[in-house]
């Protein structure tokens, strides 16, 4: 609770927190917030201006833009949640084993990381999609493959530094087993820093998902997703620019909210920042 209070003490972070919570709530309760089906095509209603019935108008297939925008939050945030969870699981396991075990195990795992680090996200995504076909699963796979190694390297570094701390040595002296040592004394020290990194990266991952969906490699139409919506609206950029503007604004606000939240979290978890800096 103290952490939450520190986090919310800044106005910008408070605003970002509210925005992020709002997007999360929208994603969770999308079906309750709009009576329209996001995939319901009605060509007689296409490209309608905002009205009482369709608050943000309709797209080129007569689908309600607001309903697609609200359901799009589900696809975007859902895929990012899966990506972040998979990256954390993989990198925490590999990074902590490499850092703690050291020696040959460390050398092998880090070379493995180096191999994955050589692939650029978009190129690997295209490669995987070329082999496995387009779809959200393959986009998630590509983003996880190109990002877990960064996290594993950072976690390894943190573990390396934590395992030489005296309190870890004292726990070993007391006869604490290796598994318990890692779970109780090392990972709790790693986790807050990784949490900050993951929060800062949520926006970055979201841009990847939307970017790949925009290129037609990720979420496939007619599923509502912000990147797909921008792609659909591409041909109406001159006549109906608002169709691009709404999903673009949604991506902008969400990415910004998570970035600012990550910044705030970093400041809140930084003991130097908390006291206003050394010597103050």
């Amino acid at each position: 609770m103290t952490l939450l209070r520190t986090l919310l003490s800044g106005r910008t972070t408070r605003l970002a927190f509210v925005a992020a919570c709002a997007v999360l709530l929208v994603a969770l309760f999308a079906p309750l917030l709009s009576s329209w089906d996001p995939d319901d095509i009605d060509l007689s209603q296409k490209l309608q201006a905002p009205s009482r019935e369709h608050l943000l108008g309709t797209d080129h297939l007569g689908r309600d833009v607001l309903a697609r925008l609200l359901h799009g939050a589900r696809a975007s945030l859902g895929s990012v949640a899966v990506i972040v969870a998979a990256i954390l699981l993989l990198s925490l396991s590999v990074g902590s084993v490499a850092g703690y075990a050291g020696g040959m195990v460390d050398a092998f795992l880090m070379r493995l990381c180096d191999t994955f680090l050589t692939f650029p996200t978009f190129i690997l995504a295209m490669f995987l999609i070329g082999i496995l076909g387009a779809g959200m699963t393959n986009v998630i796979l590509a983003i996880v493959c190109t990002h877990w190694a960064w996290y594993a390297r950072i976690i390894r570094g943190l573990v390396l530094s934590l395992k030489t701390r005296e309190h870890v040595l004292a726990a070993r002296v007391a006869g604490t087993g290796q598994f318990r040592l890692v779970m109780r004394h090392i990972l709790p020290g790693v986790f807050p820093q990784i949490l900050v990194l993951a929060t800062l990266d949520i926006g970055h991952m979201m841009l990847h998902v939307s970017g790949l969906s925009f290129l037609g490699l990720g979420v496939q139409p007619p599923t509502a997703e912000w990147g797909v919506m921008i792609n659909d609206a591409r041909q109406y950029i001159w006549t109906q620019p608002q169709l691009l503007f709404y999903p673009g604004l949604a991506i902008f606000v969400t990415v910004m909210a998570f970035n600012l939240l990550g910044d705030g979290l970093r400041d809140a978890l930084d003991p130097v920042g908390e006291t206003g800096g050394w010597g103050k």
Partner: protein
Amino acid sequence: MLAVESLELEILRGRPRKVVRNVSFSVPRGRVTCLVGESGCGKSLTCLAILGLLPEAVRRTGGTITIDGERVNDLSPEHLQALRGGKAAMILQNPMSCFDPICTVKSHFLESLAAHGGNPGRLSPEVMPESDLARARRSLAEVGFDSPDDILDAYPFQLSGGMLQRVMVALALLSEIRLLLADEPTTDLDVVSQARILTLLDETRRRHGMGVLLVTHDIGVVARMADFVVVMHKGEVVEQGEVATLFAAPRHAYTRALLQAHLSLYGLSFGDEAVGTVSPEPCLAAATPGPVPEEVRIR
């Protein structure tokens, strides 16, 4: 109790080089052996080698270590883990950094108890079984805490260095240990706390009959505590013997320099009449603070 024979340690970074060479000494049951020497001479590494806790970059290349008849070199990792905190415990130099800052003292006790005969798996301080709690309270009372429950609920940063050092001794006393390694246990403490910890170590040794290996570079501490002294210099044992003999007639130049350096702090000289046939007393008198006035005594 503890026998170290021809111990050799090597640092692997860059070109391998020996940092501890041919070190042999023993710690008999119920006695205190002091390992003295300047910083970086290999005292702490020797201690860590005894418990099989050498850093990654350091390797034992020779020699044997025997604790209570068991050769540490031959022990499996599981047996070694059981030995640490079970038969042999260690007190580290800086008590402020030896406790996990995000865990209460009770959590530290739970962990040590889980490793040695407590209730394994139960590691939440809220569900600490009564039997474990009683053991923790008993141990804290033994090191002089009047209200152990307050200490158990405290976080490390809420206690002073001297108190934490006593908590560390209490943690060591949870099992019936036979050997206590104390790696410069008083270096980071003020003189009042130093005196208290030394008295505590001495009382504990007498009560439990354990062997104590005390690593220090403070000759005053040696004079007060030691039965035997082992002098290390640049990774080698240059002299060892009973404390009175070694103080009276140091044979090696380094030992003489060490004693002289200490005495000169108090305006004494090794050849002085006052020092005479050197016994530990002058060193002790020069280094030990007088009786602690009641008003400055800490709990």
